[in-house]
């Protein structure tokens, strides 16, 4: 897995990056109080830097035809999303397991005996560990590329998908961030087309990058617009 650099110097790089216009992103970031957990949780590089393919181990990637089918468009590489996404899932799963496990253990303690509580705890712990590992896998499965005329996404652990959405087909682009996402300093860019079946979103982007991506996508959907 690709490790992100420490948070401090990277922050400076966002602001110092000439390709980035922080003036539009900045108010929203303040408004949403972006990232009081960012010191705790590592965040990835927000600028979509092209990412050498040999960083992912070549044995499991290039040899399988399935992996080749999910390769990025020619001459490009997947932009990976922030590791905060994995932490987001882990926190959700952890809180759920704590609530369900604690409540269940209390009930079992009063109605049954200690062995039941121990079995229940083991079960919840197993779910927690599985969820923990899956969160990491899911985070690593995510990738997006803004190609010349379409947005390409790939995601999924059990059901792996590659989605190609032409810019001209985008009807609505919006950025959402729930409370936990705001705390982690990430946001979701959701793209809607006229096909209601398409659940097309990019999760786990740093907020500023999400805002910039929304602006880019909105501008391109305007310039490539061809009606319905």
């Amino acid at each position, binding site marked *: 897995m690709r490790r992100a650099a420490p948070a401090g110097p990277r922050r400076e790089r966002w602001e110092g990056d000439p390709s980035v216009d922080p003036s539009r992103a900045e108010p929203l970031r303040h408004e949403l109080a972006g990232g009081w957990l960012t010191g705790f949780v590592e965040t990835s590089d927000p600028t979509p830097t092209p990412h050498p393919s040999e960083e992912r181990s070549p044995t499991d990637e290039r040899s399988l035809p399935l992996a080749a089918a999910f390769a990025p468009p020619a001459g490009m590489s997947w932009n990976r999303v922030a590791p905060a996404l994995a932490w987001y899932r882990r926190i959700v799963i952890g809180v759920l397991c704590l609530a369900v496990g604690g409540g269940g253990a209390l009930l079992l303690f009063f109605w049954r005996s200690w062995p039941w509580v121990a079995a229940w705890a083991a079960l919840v712990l197993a779910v927690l560990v599985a969820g923990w590992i899956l969160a990491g896998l899911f985070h690593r499965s995510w990738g997006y590329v803004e190609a010349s005329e379409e947005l390409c996404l790939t995601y999924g652990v059990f059901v792996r998908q590659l989605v190609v959405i032409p810019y001209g087909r985008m009807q609505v682009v919006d950025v959402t961030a729930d409370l936990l996402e705001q705390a982690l300093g990430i946001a979701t860019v959701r793209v809607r087309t006229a*096909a209601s079946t398409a659940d097309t979103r990019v999760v786990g982007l740093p907020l500023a990058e999400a805002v910039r991506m929304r602006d880019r996508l909105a501008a391109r959907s305007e310039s490539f617009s061809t009606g319905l």
Partner: protein
Amino acid sequence: MGRPPAPSPHAPVLLPPSLGRRPPPVPRPGPEDDVTTGVYRSHWMIVPLQVLAVALVFVALMGPILNTFGFGWVMMLTVAVAFGTLAYVLPAWWYGTFGLREDHLVVHSGLVMRSSREVPLSRLQAVDVVRPLLLQVFGMADLRVEMAGGDASAIRLRCLPQGLAERMRAAVLAHAAGLPGRAPEAPEWSFYRLPFLLLLGALTFRVPVLLSFILLLMLATAGVVFGEYGVIGALLPLTLGLLRYFWGPLARYTDYYASLSSDGLRLRYGMFQRRMQTVPPGRVQAVRVVEPLLWRALGVARVEANVAGYAGARQGDSATLLPVAPRRRAFALVNELFPESEAAHVPLVPNRSPVPSLMGVDEHLFISIRGLFCLVTEIVPVERVQAVRLVAGPLSRFTGRVAVDVDTPPGPVRAKAPGRDAGEARRFVDALVEYGRRARVPAAGTERWETRSTLTRRRGRVEEPDRGTAGPGEPKAEKTGACDTSDEKGTQGAGDTPEP
């Protein structure tokens, strides 16, 4: 049956072939028929009808209770309720107006909550005139203007006088086409008339319907012979199912007539509820040709389409373009809906999974043919594809097979090609994206189709000399012969070249 010439408003006078019944000629619009200015409202008849309905309901519900106080009370309260209803219905009718302002349709409605909607007609997706039996008796009709925004965005103008509904439909379509609203209705060419016997036979000749009939008869016989009344419990769902899947389509599609015009496809059908649908050109997002098992023996098929306006409940009402038609006609309709493309010329590739299916992409169309018993041919023009996705399920890791899904606006067509080899599927996705890129020129929108030069039709097409033989360069499906669409249409290659 000759193939109708391509509809074109600018072509030299082409006398349409006189096939079957022609609709009555639309009278030349006089000054009193001009609906492009002025304010209109529903038929005045709905005011007394609504008052009568409320009064009748009141009497039916409260009458038995009030009758204990005497007949006079019933009369007095009924009259009071009738006048109360009138006091609401009359102003609601008077203030519920609509009219055309330039190429916008303005609709005012509501009495307590006034609402006023203004709809740009260049964005309309379809126009339907619906006449249920009750409205036919009083000479009224509903006009529905479908927009792309789903169920809530459609405009329903209820209970119009029939003449007004027809003229308003013509004006709305003229505005949508980019013409002035006074333009006369575009001429039409007969495309297909469904004989009642074919409809009846095709609806009967289906496996579920036949099985239900046999089961129904067996159960009824058993019930009568053994005097066992428990069979009624099984008869009821069977009868309901037959009503839904046999009687429903039979009544709905009786007297079905399809015609083509420069305003798009016009459909007229219905026994008790007459409907007239107009789907303008370029509004059809995807099409599927469905051939159930026994219909393949008859050589007939059904054509359904995704139209962005037909969302929600209206999807089942309006999405079927041809209920029953010979395969040849069905694929001819597909070619008419997507001009400049030939479904038969798309090279099809069979897959290597146990369930046979075919898939093909060329610069105009994406085609997927699948289904073991009920053969479904899904056709999506590449410039209408909303998103392409490559899906690998949990088993794909072992089988190496993935599916290609093509997202379209919601409707009966869910275009997908399952069970493809991973590398091949990826090449298809790349080809689809590349062809879509070329097809989506920014000027290729579908608004105001009469005044645009980009939405061309095959004008120079000639009647093919021999329809039985396949055209040149036909693809041959290697695996499933039944899936082969190539013998459907043999159009000469000159027909495919778009006009400059």
